[in-house]
């Protein structure tokens, strides 16, 4: 019987082993001004195992670093992407939003086309676009998972960006505490990049 497991790589980038297949989520393997993981990147693109697919939730650079992922050895690995990824990357060879693939050499084009938006805030005003710890705990109470692993909390935009834009406290314990109150049946585990959790 095949194992189900999750390995944290960094931020929202994980390896998920399920049903005998291995998937990579939200690839992010590089940094640029104002976008830092705030924690180690446990695996490089060259260290990745054989993948059956890549799942990309949205087009922001910290979730959709196709420029770096383009060096992955299997250029035919399927990308399963949100529609916004295709919209943000005109000229990519994504054939359809639900079963997009990139062709050899073409994956360098999408990332620079991604809009210059922080994952935690829109560039104008102080609109919050990422759930805070309490909201994440409320969602946990609705989904009722056995296990929850927080991520995306270490992200930093640097000294000035954290003051002007993200306003994040970078503390996953707030989620753990909120989930204990709102979703007591869910076990919350905070794990370091590089850690593999078998279910």
């Amino acid at each position: 019987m095949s194992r189900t497991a999750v390995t944290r790589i960094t931020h929202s980038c994980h390896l998920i082993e399920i049903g005998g297949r291995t998937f990579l989520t939200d690839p992010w393997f590089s940094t640029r001004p104002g976008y830092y993981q705030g924690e180690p990147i446990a695996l490089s693109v060259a260290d990745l195992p054989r993948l059956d697919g890549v799942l990309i939730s949205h087009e922001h650079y910290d979730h959709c670093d196709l420029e770096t992922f383009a060096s992955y050895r299997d250029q035919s690995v399927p990308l399963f992407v949100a529609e916004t990824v295709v919209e943000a990357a005109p000229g990519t060879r994504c054939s359809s939003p639900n079963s997009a693939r990139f062709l050899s050499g073409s994956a360098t084009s999408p990332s620079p086309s991604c809009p210059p938006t922080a994952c935690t805030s829109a560039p104008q005003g102080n609109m919050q676009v990422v759930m805070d710890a309490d909201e994440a705990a409320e969602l946990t109470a609705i989904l009722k998972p056995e296990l929850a692993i927080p991520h995306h909390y270490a992200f930093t935009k640097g000294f000035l960006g954290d003051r002007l834009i993200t306003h994040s406290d970078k503390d996953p314990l707030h989620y753990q505490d909120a989930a204990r109150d709102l979703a007591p049946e869910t076990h919350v585990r905070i794990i370091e990049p590089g850690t593999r959790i078998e279910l």
Partner: protein
Amino acid sequence: MNTTAIHTVDLTGIGSVEVTVADYGSGQPFLLLHGGAGPQSVTGFAEQFAAAHDVRVLVPTHPGFGGTPRPEALNSIGGLAALYNALLSQFGLQDVTVIGNSIGGWITAEIALLKSPRVSGIVLIDAVGIEVPGHPVADFFSLTMDQVFQLSFHNPGPFRIDPATLPPAAQAIAAGNRAAISVYAGTAMADPTLVDRLGSLEIPTLVLWGSSDRIVDADYGRAYAAAIPMARFQLLPDTGHSPQLETPDQVIHAIWDSADTDFSAFAH
């Protein structure tokens, strides 16, 4: 406590460049770039900032200013940006905020456009470098020094000096500074291509502007902020073209406590 050292940087296309760098404090790193008024227009601020917070502030003297040598081939704002980008690599610094005043702000904008991951944020203080229709940069080279002081400060009194009364060595340095401004920035103090190029920046940016600045007015500053997608604009009251010199406390507050600022109040 601070130290000053001469660093040698090898720059592609220009060769070996010697640059004098004053180093204040320790902690969160800042690169602080002076304008045409020379390094002494920022060193007091650097000392005060490093005394108030756990910060390390590096203040280079642009080659040619302050009596320092300038290699012939180092003759543009882009060249200075490449120099300081290489210097930050040489120092091995991460999460650097670059602060620049006047021409130093222009250099800062060009550093941001090099998109080094070492530079995580920029602060432009009464920067020059862009062209804004109807809001020209005052023509420094056609002004008397007295006029420059008049346009530069909210209250010029304490800062005004009569160049004729300076000792010969200081006059030579002032003449060298003037020549360096002309080499790096030209007489226009602007690059017509800059404003469009700024549109590609994704870097967190704070634009601070002295409300009494008549070298480059506040609307010019608003246009600068508008050209940079992530920029926040803040007008500083009762201060002129060099707020870090005239009112250092409010500049330190504007940077350190920027999380508490409601920028919507300053945008219009």
